[in-house]
Every structure is written in structure tokens, then in C-alpha cells.
């Protein structure tokens, strides 16, 4: 019987031929923790009487969620991470280096066939590189730090076939929001997702990251794509080599196969307070907004900043809107500077914050006030997500966020193209 991508990766990493429902202990290639989860993982590591890391060269801790620290208690947790990194010899990414997932994508160590666990739910992002990567909690992370292994139940797979060509002004973010709206927030719970079809193949690698990033918003354990030239180019750019593509067999068995033609897709938005509360933009046009955010591990990449600058060129953000930009990594930040993108965004009224999570999770900057409405390129709009339960959050593509920032109300980006 044929295997899906995840069955193949878990077979390779556990040394046996696995099938859906098997429990396997598999070796991991890379382990990551961020500042919201690492302190508890360090506690668990001590509780497990961990003596050393399985391989310090395959472990990274990232200070990105509350970075720079807004208060002394957080500073102390950051310092705990720094001293753990010194003690164990693992890599520490400190304030200003970027959001964990972008940094992992830029290591060159994660590519086709890799198995990665990260103590952050959006670890599924690396699925766009044909890797099985998944979010775990702090105790699981500690176990992986010590043993270099993790246990998994081999999941069934749901396959999304996206045919056709996305129209101008409609992006990978619109597509993934649409898919989440279709299958709902628990439509893929315990399952792995595979995304394929002409529309996925046509996407840049950065656009694919956006799709894989949000697999968890449908409950999925992973969001995997096939490897192609773009995949290998990306990995090579960061010095990675030795990876081999993992493709599903033609006779692989899927829990469900869902086919869509994306050619007529409109820009989509997730409405408060659920990511699967999705509507076409046309139904929401005109809704006033007070803050606009470009950034996060979903859409804080160079391509996103280019799209934003393109729309904003020669225009200004509405005086009623605060516009925050959080580049996803230092590398992106510097490149955006060199290309003049940041100049365009800042002169038009934007405020650039430290590369990292930015206002995404309400821990250190850009908290909205009561009754305000935010439009953001992030992946979650739960009540209170940005630090205020009395604010509303809409999620859309960088183009939609930018167009809305200019007019001060939800606006179709195609008006500005």
C-alpha cells in the first residue's frame, strides 16, 4: 500500500515501515523553543534530570515573543534562557534577530524530509519545505532536548488539491483563510494536511510558508507540500544541502481529498473572534479600522513587505490608523532597508518594531484599546489575542491590510493595483 508524505518521513525517522495509527518513537533533526515556552521546558529538563542536550548543534532557543522585554519578570526568564544556552552550548537567538519560525527557515538545516519539533504551535510552517515539523509543549520539548527523539501517532492525511491560478490581488493568505473557512477550526484535528495542485506549485516559497503556517488553525499536526526547485533553492540559499525530496505515492491512502478551483477566489478575511469565521472581503468592505499590522510568522517576509510598499508608494496611511510593521527576521529587515521598502512604509506613516512576533500575541507592543478594530496579517484573531479582550481583530493578506490602512476602513486591495 502506498504512503503519504508523513508516513514516509516517519518511516525514515523510526526505521520501520509505518502506517496510520502506529505509535512510533522517531529521531528528530532539529528542536526549537521560544521565550514563552522555553522557561517551562528548562524546568522540565531539570525535573527529568537532564545532563546534556542530545546535540547542541541541533537545538535553538529564540527570544521573540516579548522581545525586547517589557518588564523585569520577563527579563529574568530571558536571562534564564541565555544561561541555559551557555551551559548546554545550544544556539540562542536574542532580541532583534527575528521570529522563531522565520529563523528556523533560515538555518539551512531544515529541508525536505526533516523532522522538527518546536515548542510553538506554528512550527508546522516548515511543512512548506517538505519537512514534517510540528508544535509540542514544554515537557515534550524537554524530552526531545535530552533524547533527540519524540513519540508520534502516525496520522491520517487530508489532501487539498488547489487547481487554477490565483487572480491578481488574491494571495496565498486568501487561499489558506478560504480553506480554513471550508474545513473549520477542527476540520483536520489529529490529521496531517498535504497541499498540492497547480496553484500551490505556482506560489513562491514565501507564499507557501503562509499556507503551511496556518495548518494548525484547522487543527492539523502538519501542513506538508511537495519539494520542487523553489524548495531546494531556498534551502541552498542558507547553505543547506543533502536533502532528498519526499513524495507521496500515487496509491497513498487519504482520509479525505478536497479539490478546489481557485481561479475566481476573492480576497478573504477572518472575522472576530475565530480564524474559521471567514468571509469574502466584499461582505465586510467599509468596516472602520484603527490599527493595521504587517508582520508575524505568517506574513512578515520580504515578499509581504514588497507587496505592502508597492501599494503604499506615493500614498499615506489614514490619520485615523496606527500602522505597525514587524519584519520577521533581521535578514528581512536589512534587505527591506536596502530596497527602500522601509523608507516607503515609514514615510507613509508606519512604525517599525523589533523583528520578532511584534504585536501578534499582545505581550509587549501595539496593544489596541477597548472598542478598537485591528486588521492584521497574523494567523490568530481570538478574543484578547493582542492583549485586549475588548478589541476586534480581522486577518487578511498584506495587500488587504495595506489598502485598509490607507482608507481607514476594510478595503479591497484590487482598488490600488
Amino acid at each position, binding site marked *: 500500500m502506498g504512503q503519504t508524505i508523513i508516513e514516509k518521513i516517519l518511516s525514515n525517522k523510526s526505521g520501520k515501515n509505518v502506517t496510520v495509527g502506529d505509535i512510533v518513537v522517531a529521531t528528530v533533526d532539529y528542536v526549537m523553543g521560544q521565550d514563552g515556552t522555553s522557561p517551562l521546558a528548562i524546568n522540565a529538563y531539570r525535573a527529568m534530570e537532564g545532563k546534556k542536550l542530545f546535540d547542541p548543534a541541533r537545538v535553538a532557543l529564540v527570544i521573540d515573543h516579548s522581545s525586547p522585554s517589557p518588564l523585569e519578570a520577563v527579563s529574568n526568564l530571558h536571562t534564564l534562557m541565555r544561561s541555559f544556552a551557555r551551559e548546554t552550548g545550544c544556539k540562542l537567538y536574542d532580541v532583534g534577530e527575528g521570529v522563531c519560525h522565520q529563523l528556523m527557515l533560515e538555518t539551512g538545516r531544515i529541508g525536505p524530509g526533516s523532522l522538527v519539533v518546536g515548542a510553538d504551535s506554528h512550527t508546522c510552517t516548515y511543512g512548506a519545505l517538505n519537512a514534517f515539523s510540528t508544535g509540542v509543549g514544554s515537557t515534550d520539548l*524537554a524530552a526531545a532536548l535530552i533524547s533527540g527523539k519524540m513519540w508520534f501517532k502516525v496520522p491520517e492525511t487530508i489532501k487539498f488539491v488547489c487547481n487554477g491560478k490565483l487572480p491578481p490581488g488574491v494571495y496565498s493568505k486568501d487561499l489558506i483563510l478560504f480553506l480554513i473557512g471550508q474545513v473549520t*477550526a477542527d476540520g483536520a484535528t489529529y490529521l496531517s494536511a498535504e497541499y498540492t495542485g497547480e496553484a500551490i506549485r505556482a506560489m513562491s516559497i514565501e507564499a507557501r510558508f503562509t499556507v503551511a503556517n496556518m495548518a494548525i488553525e484547522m487543527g492539523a499536526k502538519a501542513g506538508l507540500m511537495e519539494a520542487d526547485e523553489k524548495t531546494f533553492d531556498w534551502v541552498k540559499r542558507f547553505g543547506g544541502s543533502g536533502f532528498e525530496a519526499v513524495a507521496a505515492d500515487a496509491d497513498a491512502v487519504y482520509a479525505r481529498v478536497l479539490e478546489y478551483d481557485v481561479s475566481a477566489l476573492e480576497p478573504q478575511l477572518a472575522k472576530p473572534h475565530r480564524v474559521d469565521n471567514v468571509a469574502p472581503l466584499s461582505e465586510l468592505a467599509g468596516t472602520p479600522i484603527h490599527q493595521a499590522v504587517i508582520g508575524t510568522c505568517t506574513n512578515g517576509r520580504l515578499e509581504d513587505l514588497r507587496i505592502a510598499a508597492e501599494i503604499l508608494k506615493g500614498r499615506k496611511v489614514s490619520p485615523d490608523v496606527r500602522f505597525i510593521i514587524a519584519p520577521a527576521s533581521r535578514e528581512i529587515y536589512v534587505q527591506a532597508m536596502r530596497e527602500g521598502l522601509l523608507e516607503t512604509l515609514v514615510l507613509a506613516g508606519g512604525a517599525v518594531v523589533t523583528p520578532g512576533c511584534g504585536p501578534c500575541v499582545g505581550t509587549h507592543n501595539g496593544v489596541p484599546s477597548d472598542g478598537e478594530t485591528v486588521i492584521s496579517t497574523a494567523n490568530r484573531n481570538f478574543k484578547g489575542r493582542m492583549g485586549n479582550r475588548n478589541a476586534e481583530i480581522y486577518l487578511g493578506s498584506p495587500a488587504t491590510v495595506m489598502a485598509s490602512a490607507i482608507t481607514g476602513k476594510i478595503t479591497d486591495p484590487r482598488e490600488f493595483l
Partner: protein
Amino acid sequence: MEFKGRAHKFGDDINTDYIISGKYKFKTLDMNELARHVMEDLDQDFYSKITPGDFLVAGRNFGCGSSREQAPLAVKHARLSAVLAKSFARIFYRNAINTGLPVVECDTDQIEPGDELVVDLAAGVIHNLTRGVAIEVKPMPSVMLQILSDGGLAAHFRKYGEFKLDQEEENAL
């Protein structure tokens, strides 16, 4: 393991931001402090309504969202004895077992707010004393039972220094 208490009921898709808001989770490793804010964005006075031993009862997909282990820990330190839901998000489910918070999959439509329950994990049944019904519990995967019976994953690692899971047995099932 047998627990007795009253039900506090919530809906479907209760995410980890609702269980413990992101704005608190990073500030401290003091779980008793975090526990005071449990479910705060949905019910501001929730913590004060808890009698030790009570149950958190919910619909589908409990614990979706982030991987923060602070979520099950805050529930546990709020002195709730277990979470009962129709289904759980996978990371939350693992985290709960790893940290020793019992999670019970069952038909929660048969439980109303305030109902008095006896949860008998060994027998796999919940007695709803208020309504006089017995609710069947969906069995837990055996590897999870193994981790729970070792006292959580940290204790499992202290004992074996690595993963020692009875996979063959599981795969034969």
C-alpha cells in the same frame, strides 16, 4: 482515580488564549498566579467560582491554538480536577497528560452547568448525579496511559532516561 465535583461548562473551540491569555503566560513561572486568570477572557470572575475538585466541561476541540503548557498547568493549579470535552486539540491533549492533568473525552451534551459529577477514570465512566445518567468515557491511547501511570513525562524520563514506550503492544491493537 475517582473525582467528585461540579461542572463549569463552556462551548466549542475553547482556545489556549482563553484558557490563559498570552498577556500573562510569559510573565511568570508561578502557576498559582497564572491560575487566577484561568478563562478570564470568557468569564472575568471564573477563578472565584471554582470549588476545589470541580470540572471544566466543554464541547469540541478544547485547547486549540498555541502549544503553551501554561494552559493545562493553569487549569490544574486552579484546582480543577479534570477537563471533560467532546474532543481535544492534539497539542493540548499531550501537554495535559505530560503534566498530569486528566483529560476525558466523552459526550458532554449530557452535562449542564452546575451538575454534580463523579468521574471514575479506572472504570471509564462518569456518573452525572444531578441527572442520574452514566456517561461513557472514550478510552485513552495506551501510550498515554503509560505516561500518566508513570506520573507524567518528566517522571517517565527520570525513571528510564529516555522514551520507553510499549509500542509493539500498541501496534498490535
